[in-house]
């Protein structure tokens, strides 16, 4: 199959090739046949391309370009930075891409492996002392800078979480008030047969706690199911293995504890209101 790709933008850092996807011909060796490239799964699926197909790649539309062989199809990593970008990715040998773009002996960036933390700091400082026109950055710093988008999204999620917690706290308080109010007659009878207010408040709080725990366990199950649906949906939409929603032990603990605290407080407030009302008034007399 021979396909002409109208215009492929080559936006990946030059020369970055994963082991399983490396084009077959080695850099610098004389090329007898066409050069090889690797394409991503999205492009392969959308253009109906397979390993072994020949395609033409050019840096701009209307330019002759090179005929190349597809040597590999790569799956995208679970990188949140890539999900909103719909563009296709093609990986070429560094020298091939440089000649295709007329880039000369230039690269966008180097990745340098060091022998540990101290060596990294030393390498960064020595490179920056000697460099002109470029700078060395630690990977961790680059990660912080490139993850600013997710820091913003995370802050947004936290803000939404706060609003949700306020809404659920009010809902829970309201429900507990109703629940306890429904037992006005029972409480009045207990008071009349001599049960102490402490026992009554204790029993109501216990009941509230039990309801809160059971409710939050049901909530965890619903949350788990919702998380599964969210992941299935967005993984299909964005064609990525990235997990969009994760229910962790910490989150479960937070939800259950919060619900327990809110339930107990709501139960205590409602019970205190009841025991302060005279028993006969609770009977409606």
């Amino acid at each position, binding site marked *: 199959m021979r396909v002409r790709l109208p215009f492929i933008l080559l936006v990946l850092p030059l020369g970055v090739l994963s082991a399983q996807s490396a084009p077959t011909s080695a850099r610098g060796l004389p090329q007898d046949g066409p050069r090889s490239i690797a394409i991503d799964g999205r492009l392969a699926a959308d253009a109906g391309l397979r390993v072994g197909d020949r395609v033409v790649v050019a840096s701009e*539309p209307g330019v002759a370009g090179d005929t190349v062989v597809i040597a590999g199809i790569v799956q995208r990593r679970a990188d949140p930075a890539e999900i909103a970008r719909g563009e296709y990715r093609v990986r070429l040998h560094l020298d091939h891409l440089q000649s295709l773009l007329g880039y000369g002996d230039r690269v966008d960036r180097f990745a340098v492996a060091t022998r540990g933390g101290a060596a990294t700091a030393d390498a960064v400082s020595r490179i920056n002392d000697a460099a002109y*026109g470029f700078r060395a950055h630690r990977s961790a710093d680059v990660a912080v800078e490139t993850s600013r988008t997710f820091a913003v999204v995370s802050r*947004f999620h936290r803000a939404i979480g706060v609003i*949700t917690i*306020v*809404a659920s706290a009010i809902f829970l*308080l309201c429900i507990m008030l*109703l629940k306890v109010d*429904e037992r006005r007659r029972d409480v009045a009878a207990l008071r009349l047969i001599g049960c102490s207010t402490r026992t009554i408040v204790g029993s109501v709080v216990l009941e509230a706690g039990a309801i809160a725990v059971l409710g939050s366990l049901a909530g965890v199950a619903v949350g788990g199911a919702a998380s599964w649906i969210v992941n299935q949906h967005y993984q299909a939409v964005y064609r990525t293995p990235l997990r969009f929603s994760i229910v962790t032990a910490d989150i479960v603990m937070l939800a259950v504890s919060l619900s327990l605290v809110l339930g107990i407080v709501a139960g205590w407030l409602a019970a205190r209101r009841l025991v302060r009302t005279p028993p006969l008034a609770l009977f409606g007399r």
Partner: protein
Amino acid sequence: MLATLALASLLRHRARTALAILGVAVSAAMLLDMVMLSSGMRESFRGLLLSQGFQLRLSPKGTLPFDTEATIRSADSLVALIRARPAVAAVSPVLGGQLHFPTTGATVNATALGIEPAVQGDYELVDGRHPVAEGEVVANDALLRALGRSVGDTVRAAAGYDPQLRTLSGQRVLRVVGRVRFIYLAFEQRAAALPIGTLRAMNGPASADRASLAMVRLRPGADVARERVALERQLRTVTVISTVEAIKQVDERLSYFRQLAVILGAVSLVVGFLLVTTLVTVSVNERIGEITVMRAIGVRRWRVVAQILLESTAIMVVASPLGLALGLVTARWLNSILARFPGLPERIDFFLFQPSAAWTALGLLALSGILAGVYPSWRGASLPIATTMRQEAVG
């Protein structure tokens, strides 16, 4: 009479009613925010794109404007071709790049836009004048602050580095002639605009006759869609996108927020609905005897239904304005968080208030208030009178 009875019923349990109103208000606030989020972002972006009157944008084939470093070749002849079309009122070519300003001890980097000042649509002039002559530049506050310069000053700038000669390349002394606000750039992004010819000359042969983007303003009454198709047919090396398509692209990229808005909006509505249904149901259960007596003395069934529906609607009606006010405050807070989104134009509002959004939220709330009263009112009105009275009397 109906209203008095409904009010009396709500006032009987003030704490409960107050909590329900508060709960519904928070749900209403969330609902308004989500309605604003789902439509506001798109409207805000549309307003931004149309703010300067350019309906079409041309970028290198297969790309979105300024999405990559690709540029359009033979840009001047391409612009001349477009200007010759009868439907076209103006064409504004833009070349994107970087400027490096050497200062004592460090270099300040900034985004550079090469423009034609007479037709540019990338910035608004705040102070001074447009950079009409070679070697003139306008800059935004972020850049002027970083450089410690103001209008009238000169500044040395370079377009790149030459690592072999270890010098800055394409150096020029530029005169700052204006202070501007860039329309499409991100918050605190340092930027400058200068005549496209100056930027091309600074960049060297690689940028000769190149442009990153061309914006097209059509004459009044021109068919945007038809002109877009015609331009794309005529110019094979560019992608022509209209405002509608640009919004579609942005919709795709930010679809997460739209979907989140729909899900959270629906959850808010359901929570509000459940809260009111629960409250009114419990309230009806407590007043079974009272309702049965009313029915026994001749009060019609529809009046019982109407009274209970009125109670649920009243909670929603009282809570809605509170919720809408709360929603506007929280929307502002949430917008200030999302405004820090890297790369997003400073002027994009995720939460744009539109009267239609408030009406939609109010309508949904009123509807859910009425629906919330349906089950309890049906239950109250369909009680068998004699049996219920007997049960109530026996206890």
